[in-house]
């Protein structure tokens, strides 16, 4: 009995390790299958490799610069990014543009000026007095307010993109169990529960926190000129595989050669989708690099401390039966 009790923790640990291993193999198998199907399988969100994933993940500075270029030249025409400051673009852990580069970026941006010496905020023509944007200003929004944004976009409000990458995940395939009899339903239920546990263990084992960028990437490449047979898309909307309900108000924003990358990278749709997703992850989580770098040190420290604590505990209890 006491042998069983002593072995139980190991058995539990082995079970978990086994599940993680199985899940890894199963998922790896799936990925392989997906890879064979080619990049054109865009009917659901697929996990991508990101430089910022995992324990040692960091943002790729060059990728963030390309991503910013896409945001600046494409997305910013409709989407605001109100939580970002221009100074963020030069801070460590981001695209790390030089001060000169950021000043060039904001050279033509204007923001509403504070009241002038006469206390006026509008000029003699009744227009809002503007001033040049500074490094300490928030990103300038494309529209004066939400109403203007909606009016210009057929009634749909282009959402603010500041935290978008954290605000999206992989849509849950929530399909209720409608099986014929109670046995097959129970079987399906057990299968789903076991799958959920495997998924959880696998996500923990791989520190999966990139569902947002995966979704954004899939959304960017998920457009279809014609909706598949049997799917009606209302006037003024586009068909997208991964958008919930498939009818999205935003027309396909990116396509091959949409931008000409400053660093010479070939601007395929897939590349652009990756770069904008990475950039949005950075704007959503600007301290990711600092977090992961500190985190590894904290973990190593705590693991060593745990081992030492255990050794001290063993020593103290050595002479005592318990």
């Amino acid at each position: 009995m006491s042998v069983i009790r002593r072995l139980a923790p190991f058995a539990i640990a082995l079970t978990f390790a086994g599940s993680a291993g199985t899940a890894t193999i199963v998922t790896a198998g799936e990925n392989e299958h997906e890879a064979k199907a080619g990049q054109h399988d865009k009917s659901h969100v697929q996990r991508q490799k990101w430089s910022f994933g995992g324990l040692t993940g960091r943002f790729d500075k060059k990728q963030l610069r390309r991503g910013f270029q896409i945001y600046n030249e494409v997305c910013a025409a409709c989407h605001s990014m109100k939580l970002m400051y221009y100074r963020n673009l030069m801070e460590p852990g981001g695209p790390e543009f030089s001060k000169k580069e950021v000043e060039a970026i904001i050279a033509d941006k204007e923001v509403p000026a504070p009241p002038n010496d006469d206390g006026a905020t509008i000029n003699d023509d009744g227009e809002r007095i503007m001033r040049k944007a500074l490094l300490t200003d928030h990103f300038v929004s494309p529209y004066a307010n939400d109403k203007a944004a909606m009016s210009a976009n057929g009634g749909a409000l282009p959402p603010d993109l500041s935290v978008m990458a954290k605000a999206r995940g992989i849509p849950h395939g929530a399909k209720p169990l409608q099986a014929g009899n109670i046995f097959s339903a129970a079987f399906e239920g057990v299968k789903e529960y076991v799958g959920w546990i495997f998924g959880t263990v696998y996500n923990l084992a791989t520190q999966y926190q990139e569902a947002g960028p995966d979704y954004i990437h899939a959304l960017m490449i998920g457009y279809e000129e014609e909706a598949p047979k049997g799917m009606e898309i209302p006037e003024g909307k586009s068909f997208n595989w991964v958008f919930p309900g498939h009818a999205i108000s935003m027309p396909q924003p990116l396509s091959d050669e949409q931008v000409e990358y400053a660093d010479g990278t070939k601007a395929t749709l897939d590349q652009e989708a990756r770069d904008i997703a990475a950039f949005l992850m950075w704007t959503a989580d600007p301290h990711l690099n600092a977090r992961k770098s500190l985190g590894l040190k904290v973990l190593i420290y705590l693991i060593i401390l745990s081992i030492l604590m255990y050794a001290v505990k063993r020593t103290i209890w050595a002479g005592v039966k318990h």
Partner: protein
Amino acid sequence: MGHHESNYEPKWAIAKWFDERLPVYRMMSDQFITFPTPRNLNYWWTMGMVLFFFLVIQLITGIILTMHYIPHEDMAFNSVEHIMRDVNWGWLLRYMHMNGASFFFIAVYIHILRGIYYGSYKAPREVLWLVGVVIYILMMAAAFMGYVLPWGQMSFWGATVITNLFSAIPLVGDYITQWFWGAYAVSQPTLNRFLSLHYLVPMLLTVFVLIHVWALHVVGSNNPEGLDVKSSDDTLPFHPYFTMKDMFMAIVFLTIYAFFVFFMSNYMGEPDNYIRANPMVTPPHIVPEWYFLPFYAILRAIPDKLGGVIAMFGSIMVVAALPWLDRNPIRSLRYRPRARFFFAGFVVTAMLLGFLGAKPAEGWYVTASRILTLYWFVYFLVILPLLSKMETTNRHMPGSITDAVLGHHGVIPEAKQ
């Protein structure tokens, strides 16, 4: 507090002077240094210290977060993002507080299940148990209101769903709900008072934690054998034996916690809460935080709103009533194989209900929730009372804690209880 003789000897004149006026060192020495503790406590007994660690973490990070947070419906969301972006180490404080809440619940669920398994609620520990239930309810209140503060979509709609439960109360329900909101919907007054209460409740919680420790030190710890302490051989001084064992486990917990804070920061949250609250747009699935999911499943298992609310609160009340539902004289399930079987069923039920709570209330999910909800209540209200009359003796039970430690299981026939 405590029944053992004080053996505190002030070493310095000033300590003696102080001891004659306010014996606080004596109390600390008696309660946390020499306090006699059953020598056979296993690692399931270390959660108390772990919980204390997380209480302190939550208090410290919470106090600092409040220095930067703005409880205004137009500014709350952005003020949290301001903390995450511009406050020095703000991202660390916020992720620590967010994940700290989850780890508080992980530790408390282990603590509660340990209490149920080893019969720690039985005489003379009924008051200790009830104080624990009060702490748990306060924790849930604090966690619920804290989750509303970032004013994301899930904050807002979670608050709307949960506060609406009070409208199920006959006659005065709507009135109470509006009084609770301070308005006709969840809005500015609600957010403002939730911050106030989110600050108040942890203070109450801390007071009840002290009462919990007090009650524990009056009756002493239960132990895996479920036997009373009979001689000083059965115990060891709290320090260094249990301080060290507890601190070791606390560090192990902190390590796992750090893994989540730094690498899985948003794993236990919902992406929807990074969308600013919008009263005009209902999210497709309103899901509470993971630690409420079993109760959410019970709520939705009952087709009637009032019935669901009663079942949900009832599911906690039956846990509070445990000392009077399970009257079997044997405390530890080590010596009650049948009860152990049904206990395992209860643990599985709670976990499956948690899974179902995250699913939409449709089809077989509802049927499964109903069956499991039924088991939850049958376990407490039927099975445990019935088992109180069965397996009331066990010939393998050792005569004392020391016997158990030395491996004298059931060798002394007359030592049966």
